[in-house]
């Protein structure tokens, strides 16, 4: 009996026969996976409220870190944008004629540490301010233009270190006709440091919530295992392998993950839509290119795959802890 594990109907036709048997087996193996997958979805539908609650818990736990990550990515995009245009702003003396300002611009531009110099003449500056600030009427009360000519100096990459920029600033400050020099770098570094801290916090949060998701699914699957104890016993009794017995629960975990991932995606999309108006206005005020980036198709796919993996993992933990303990030893009766 130990020689022939499966009752093959007949073995008369040799190789052909065994090849078709193999493909039969592969087909029935896949068929079984399909059946188990379908069956575990149907079980989920049979308790819609409980399932929806699990999905929601999972969705919220996933949406939170993902939303923060998206925010972070958007912020990092902003600072990266600034970094590439990190520049020194030099305000010229109020009474300096435009002619002289142009001369100074040319002089600075010829310095080796400088890529480009843009001169914003005072009239232009006022017009820009008028357009962007919405203070049109207030500006009408001013008798004369309060803004000086401005030089926007973009340093060479090599001069963009803290010391390099400082040297450049000193050089510009010492020129005649300069009123004040400002550098964006200071708060750019601050923003970078902040996003670094934020990034770590978000990843820590993501880790914690990921663990929470695994525990939630683990507990849900543990209950499912308890509910199907008899079935597990019988399956083991008639020769079901561990893999066979585990399979429905692993699928259950993965489906919970899928549901949770979809809920998370939905929450994120709704929040994005809800926030997009105010953020656009805010970014407009700061003349920033800042936009809150959605997860996109790739991101959504990644989110759902990660969610399914977490669900599967949670189920696996529960199965390892509870299912392998169920042995038909005690059902034979005493």
């Amino acid at each position, binding site marked *: *009996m130990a020689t022939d594990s499966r*009752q093959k109907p007949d073995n008369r036709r040799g190789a052909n026969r065994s090849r078709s048997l193999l493909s039969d087996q592969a087909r029935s193996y896949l068929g079984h996976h399909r059946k188990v997958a379908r069956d575990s979805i149907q079980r989920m539908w049979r308790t819609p409220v409980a399932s929806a609650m699990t999905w929601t818990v999972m969705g919220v736990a996933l949406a939170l870190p993902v939303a923060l990550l998206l925010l972070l990515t958007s912020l990092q995009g902003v600072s990266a944008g600034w970094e590439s245009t990190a520049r020194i702003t030099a305000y010229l003396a109020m009474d300096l004629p435009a002619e002289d300002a142009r001369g100074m611009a040319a002089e600075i531009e010829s310095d080796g540490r400088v890529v480009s110099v843009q001169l914003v003449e005072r009239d232009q500056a006022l017009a820009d301010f008028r357009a962007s600030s919405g203070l049109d009427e207030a500006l009408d009360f001013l008798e004369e233009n309060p803004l000086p000519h401005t030089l926007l100096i973009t340093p060479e990459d090599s001069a963009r270190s803290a010391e390099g920029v400082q040297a450049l600033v000193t050089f510009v400050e010492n020129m005649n006709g300069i009123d004040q020099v400002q550098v964006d770098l200071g708060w750019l570094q601050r923003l970078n440091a902040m996003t670094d801290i934020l990034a770590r916090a978000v990843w820590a949060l993501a880790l914690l919530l990921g663990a929470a998701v695994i525990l939630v699914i683990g507990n849900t699957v543990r209950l499912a295992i308890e509910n199907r104890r008899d079935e597990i016993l019988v399956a083991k009794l*008639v020769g079901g392998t561990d893999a066979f017995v585990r399979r429905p629960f692993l699928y259950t975990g993965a489906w919970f993950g899928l549901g949770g991932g979809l809920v998370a995606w939905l929450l994120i999309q709704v929040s994005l839509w809800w926030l997009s108006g105010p953020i656009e206005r805010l970014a407009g005020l700061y003349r920033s290119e800042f936009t809150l980036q959605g997860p996109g198709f790739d991101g959504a796919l990644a989110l759902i795959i990660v969610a399914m993996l977490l669900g599967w993992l949670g189920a696996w933990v529960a199965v390892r802890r509870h299912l392998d303990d169920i042995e038909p030893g005690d059902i*034979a009766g005493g």
Partner: protein
Amino acid sequence: MIEFRQVTKRYDSDHTALRAVNFHLDRGELAFLTGHSGAGKSTLLKLIMVMERPTAGEVIVGGQKLNSLPRRQIPYIRRHIGVVFQNHQLLFDRTVFDNVAMPLEVMGASPEDTGRRVRAALDKVGLLKKEKMNPMQLSGGEQQRVGIARAVVNKPPVLLADEPTGNLDPELSADIMRLFTQFSQVGVTVLVATHDIALINDMNRRTLTLNQGQLVAGGGVSGH
């Protein structure tokens, strides 16, 4: 087909359920296992099913030494052993057909194969017409026969039964015994644990008798 060599089973340090049990059952042999309650009948069957492992001695089924069998291999051994219990262990969340199909499902049989074999097994126990019913709708005797159909659906070479007639009336018990006899006639080794002495006397078969875990009769070479 089934061989016990000096098998001892101790559940905890001082309680010995089986003591140095020796016997050998041939292919196609039908034997009874009897003894008082707590004599060790179920324990003996569980050792064959690898639901328990012996403390000492060797259990050999189909030429395979079960002691050295790794855990992973246990399911494959169980596929060769049909079991019937008093509390028939049917699942009430599925039809009679699906209950009987379980041993085939775990083996990954194709749907056509499953359908054919399940109907053959149900036909054998006379329940072909009830395949779509829920086992809950069946009488005790019918439920027991569903259990038997499930035990034999994949044509195992060994069939074990633990108190299969426990709460059935004598006529139904005789029915069940007739089924077991038929299986043994086609080469299945059948071992039936029961304390129903009347039934054993009717059948006039080899009887292994346990007393306090010791095999006191029927251990020698079979003589039916």
